[in-house]
């Protein structure tokens, strides 16, 4: 709050004043106290500062509120202040709290069970809800972020005409020239520009480091409206071709690489081969487009534009002009597309897709998160039901006491207040425990999160988390307290007094409510368990997917090229000589290379012209460049024709080897051998003949097989980044020998080793599947534990309640076995009813979880049956303990006790 200024000068904080007013007596007394405080406030803020006056006001208000809410009940209502009767209720609640505390301390076991139940439920809910809050609900961390949009090029082939945000996210589809047209012709944007990611090497003397950089135009920077913390942001002159390249550092990079030096501005960075001057440092909270980016560099290189208006590589961010809605903007951009179509007929089919930036960033994680959130809400519900059940037991024990108090004139409201006091205390304790668990658990749970989850960097232990925990605690307090409180308040006096000390009839009635609570717990736990079963089965299927290549004993090696390999033909020569050396290492079975690999980095799918048995077609093929031994190193089988060989040279006929999926598309009924494929790129438009068909491979676990065409490196020299080395044993053991050989050929060369199987396990689909399994699995286990505990509680209580009846039965010669059977039967019935209800819920919710599943039906019978079996078994086990206790009753002791 600004000192000595602001609209409130001369006025105490109105919220505080209003709160204080509620604790003060009505009438002149309360009025005059408020007046006194205000008078002093005015004097103090004139004498010192508004801030000091506010502090002083706060201190006095707390002191007064404290004293006046502690008013004793003996204060009689007066003419001046008739509301004293109500106030005495307030202090009555304080008294109730004290009594509740005593009761809770007297039954530590019950209190402990209730607090743990609530704490776990609240903790889990708080954690997951704060994720939902951070990712889905909170605005992006830019001023007026709701006006930020992303623009895409939409066409029928690549995106479909009505794409959804997840469908287009990841498409870097806008050519530079086209984005300039959009911004200059569109009238709905206040500012906007393009950006594109790039890995750069930062050279510093002999050492170099790879950094993740973002090239961005000044328009894009302006649209975000985040000023630099130090120095300046991008200016229009930074976009000029031939201008001085400039860079903005992220806070993290500034701290880690440059020690947070304040004289960093003006420092020259050698990025790849270009000198960039540091002109600014961005604040710590700035993470555009996500927290992986370490620096932002100006878009001044001359080849940023190309006369060819395809080959887009930009994303476009823009800020809507004030008052413009997304629909208006879309209309305007449709008009712009039509205009562009007239100037460039080949672009007549293109449209502009506009989406809110938040939608683009959140993508389809929303539905996954909501499933998880639904799951924790169920757990919380079970925990609440559990505690409500415990209270009902307690209420039964106090049945007589409550009846007597009613008979002596206690109002229903008083009894209600007493019961609510208890749940109030429990929910506060549970909330504190839950908040503690959320704080402690946040870090480990975050480390399990798939890295692809957007906005994770914004997650933090903060005030939001505390408020969320308090919110859940209040909810649970009301939820757990209300049912037992209501029951207590409505206890009929006569029934209690008639029952004498036995408390049987009322107990039975209460028992029905409790049974219903337990049945609903089992039902909810079943829903969670079957959900967990589904994600587990889905993960197993995912990890068992046939990738189309041999996964074991394969190393993926990323190799740098020597600085003097300036031409791609030099790169090829270097590759071949290193390959020969590596092949000679002991344990190496095969060495191959490719510019794009499954489970490693991205891929490009260029538009191509394809000869098919039905004529010539345009299409999109995935076209990696590989060495001849790539197929055998990867274990991809050659199914027809031949693989690539050393005889495929620059001078021989241009060839490709295609995958089965491509073969099926090109020649549905015949052989594709001899058909041709041509890249639609200006630099490379030769026809290549299909000479072989190899097996399909998957680039991601959850993707189908993409149509592929492999081009031999000899006929399309390029820098092959990925080496594939198949070994006889542990592929990682090869690393030292490989580096030694590499060092002999290129002393400054670097290489990174990873095993292919590790890459697959660490892939996004596998990580998020594992995440779902761990999270949903532990929630389900928690739910099952709580529900089974509920069953145990009810049955144990039932046995205690029917002790006398059971004693008589046993005395009259009832068999112990039949007693056990009766109690187990009771447990079985509860479980059965719960499972039945749970099955109905699971069926109706099935569709919701489908987004988390891979090739498995949400109504998969195996998952449902195993969840049901597990829960039934656990319920019976929990029933057995009270049953055995009942059978072990000594009739003489029981009747004596009466």
């Amino acid at each position: 709050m600004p000192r000595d200024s602001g609209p409130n000068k001369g006025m105490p904080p109105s919220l505080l004043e209003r709160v204080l007013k509620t604790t003060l007596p009505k009438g002149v007394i309360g009025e005059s106290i408020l007046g006194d405080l205000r008078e002093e406030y005015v004097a103090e803020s004139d004498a010192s500062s508004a801030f000091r006056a506010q502090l002083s006001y706060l201190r006095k208000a707390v002191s007064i509120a404290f004293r006046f809410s502690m008013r004793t009940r003996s204060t009689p209502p007066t003419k001046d202040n008739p509301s004293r009767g109500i106030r005495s209720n307030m202090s009555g609640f304080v008294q109730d709290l004290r009594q509740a505390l005593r009761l809770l301390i007297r039954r530590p076991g019950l209190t402990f069970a209730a607090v743990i139940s609530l704490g776990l439920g609240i903790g889990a809910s708080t954690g997951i809800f704060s994720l939902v809050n951070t990712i889905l609900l909170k605005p992006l961390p830019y001023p007026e972020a709701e006006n930020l949009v992303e623009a895409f090029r939409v066409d029928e082939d690549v995106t479909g005409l009505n794409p959804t945000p997840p469908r287009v996210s990841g498409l870097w589809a806008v050519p530079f020239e086209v984005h300039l047209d959009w911004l200059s012709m569109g009238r709905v944007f206040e500012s906007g520009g393009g950006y594109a990611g790039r890995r750069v090497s930062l050279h510093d003397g002999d050492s170099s480091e790879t950094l993740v950089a973002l090239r961005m135009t000044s328009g894009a920077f302006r649209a975000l409206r985040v000023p630099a913390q130090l120095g300046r942001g991008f200016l229009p002159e930074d976009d000029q071709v031939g201008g001085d390249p400039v860079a903005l550092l992220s806070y993290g990079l500034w701290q880690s690489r440059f020690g947070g030096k304040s004289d960093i501005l003006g420092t020259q960075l050698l990025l790849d081969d270009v000198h960039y001057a540091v002109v600014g440092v961005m604040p710590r909270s700035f993470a555009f487009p996500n927290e992986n980016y370490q620096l932002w560099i100006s878009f001044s290189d001359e080849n940023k534009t190309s006369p060819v208006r395809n080959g887009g590589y930009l994303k476009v961010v823009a800020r809507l002009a004030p008052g413009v809605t997304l629909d208006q903007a879309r209309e305007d951009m449709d008009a712009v597309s039509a205009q562009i179509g007239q100037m460039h007929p080949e672009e007549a089919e293109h449209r502009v897709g506009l989406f809110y930036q938040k939608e683009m960033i959140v993508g389809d994680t929303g539905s996954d998160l909501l499933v998880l959130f639904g799951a924790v809400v169920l757990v919380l519900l079970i925990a609440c039901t559990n505690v409500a059940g415990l209270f009902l037991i307690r209420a039964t024990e106090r049945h007589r006491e409550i009846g007597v108090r009613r008979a002596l004139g206690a109002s229903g409201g008083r009894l209600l207040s007493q019961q609510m006091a208890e749940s109030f205390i429990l929910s506060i304790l549970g909330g504190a425990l839950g908040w503690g668990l959320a704080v402690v658990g946040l870090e480990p749970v975050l480390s399990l999160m798939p890295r692809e989850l957007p906005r994770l960097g914004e997650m933090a232990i903060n005030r939001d988390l505390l408020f969320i925990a308090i919110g859940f605690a209040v909810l649970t307090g009301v939820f757990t307290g209300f049912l037992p409180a209501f029951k207590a308040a409505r206890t009929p006096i006569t029934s209690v007094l008639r029952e004498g000390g036995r408390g049987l009839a009322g107990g039975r009635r209460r028992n029905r409510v409790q049974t219903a609570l337990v049945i609903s717990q089992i039902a909810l736990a079943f829903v969670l368990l079957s959900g967990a079963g589904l994600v587990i089965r889905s993960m197993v299927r995912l990890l068992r997917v046939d990738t189309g290549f041999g996964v074991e004993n394969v190393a993926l090696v990323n190799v740098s090229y020597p600085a003097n390999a300036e031409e791609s033909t030099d790169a090829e020569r270097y590759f071949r000589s290193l390959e020969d050396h590596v092949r000679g290492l002991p344990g190496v079975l095969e060495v191959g290379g490719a510019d794009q690999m499954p489970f490693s980095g991205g891929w490009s799918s260029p538009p191509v012209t394809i000869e098919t048995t039905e004529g010539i077609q345009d299409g999109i093929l995935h076209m990696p460049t590989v060495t001849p031994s790539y197929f055998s190193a990867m274990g991809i089988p050659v199914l027809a024709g031949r693989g690539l060989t050393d005889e495929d040279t620059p001078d021989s006929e241009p060839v490709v080897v295609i995958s089965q999926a491509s073969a099926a598309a090109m020649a549905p009924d015949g052989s594709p051998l001899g058909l041709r494929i041509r890249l639609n790129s200006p630099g490379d438009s030769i026809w290549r003949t299909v000479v072989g068909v190899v097996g399909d491979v998957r680039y991601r676990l959850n993707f189908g097989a993409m149509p592929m065409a492999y081009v031999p490196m000899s006929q399309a020299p390029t820098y092959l980044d990925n080496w594939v080395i198949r070994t006889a044993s542990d592929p990682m053991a090869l690393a030292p020998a490989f580096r030694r050989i590499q060092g002999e050929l290129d002393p400054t060369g670097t290489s990174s080793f990873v095993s292919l199987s590790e890459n697959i396990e660490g892939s996004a689909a596998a990580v998020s599947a594992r995440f779902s399994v761990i999270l949903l699995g532990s929630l389900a286990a928690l739910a099952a534990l709580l529900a089974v505990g509920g069953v145990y509680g009810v049955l144990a209580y039932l046995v205690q309640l029917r002790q006398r009846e059971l004693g008589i039965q046993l005395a009259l010669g009832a068999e112990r076995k039949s007693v056990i059977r009766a109690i187990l039967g009771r447990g079985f019935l509860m479980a059965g009813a719960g499972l039945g209800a749970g099955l109905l819920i699971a069926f109706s919710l099935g569709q919701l979880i489908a987004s988390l599943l891979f090739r498995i039906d949400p109504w998969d019978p195996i998952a449902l049956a195993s969840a049901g079996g597990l829960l039934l078994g656990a319920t019976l086990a929990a029933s057995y303990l009270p049953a055995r206790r009942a059978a072990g009753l000594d009739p003489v002791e029981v009747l004596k006790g009466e």
Partner: protein
Amino acid sequence: MAPRYLGEFEQMVLLATLQLRDEAYAISIIKELEVRVGRSVGRGTLYKTLERLETKGFLQWKAEAGSPERGGHARRRFRVTSRGVAALRESRDAFQKLTEGLDEVLEGPA
């Protein structure tokens, strides 16, 4: 009626009210206590004490119209009742009786 002794703070508040004569408002009572005794008083404590003294019949107040700087809220002017004065007198007498002959101790070096 059996004598009613006053608590220490109650005595102070009554005495300050008497000292202030026609100017005994809550704020001025507080200032009086601060200035004369050097004692800083919690607001809650003061208002509760005023209330208690009123209930015991030792204090009375009259509402006066509130000025703009009070947001129009009324102001209470306090007056010690004759019962209040009597109670103060009783307390002082008890005090005097109990301190008789203790001058040596009470006025000597602490």
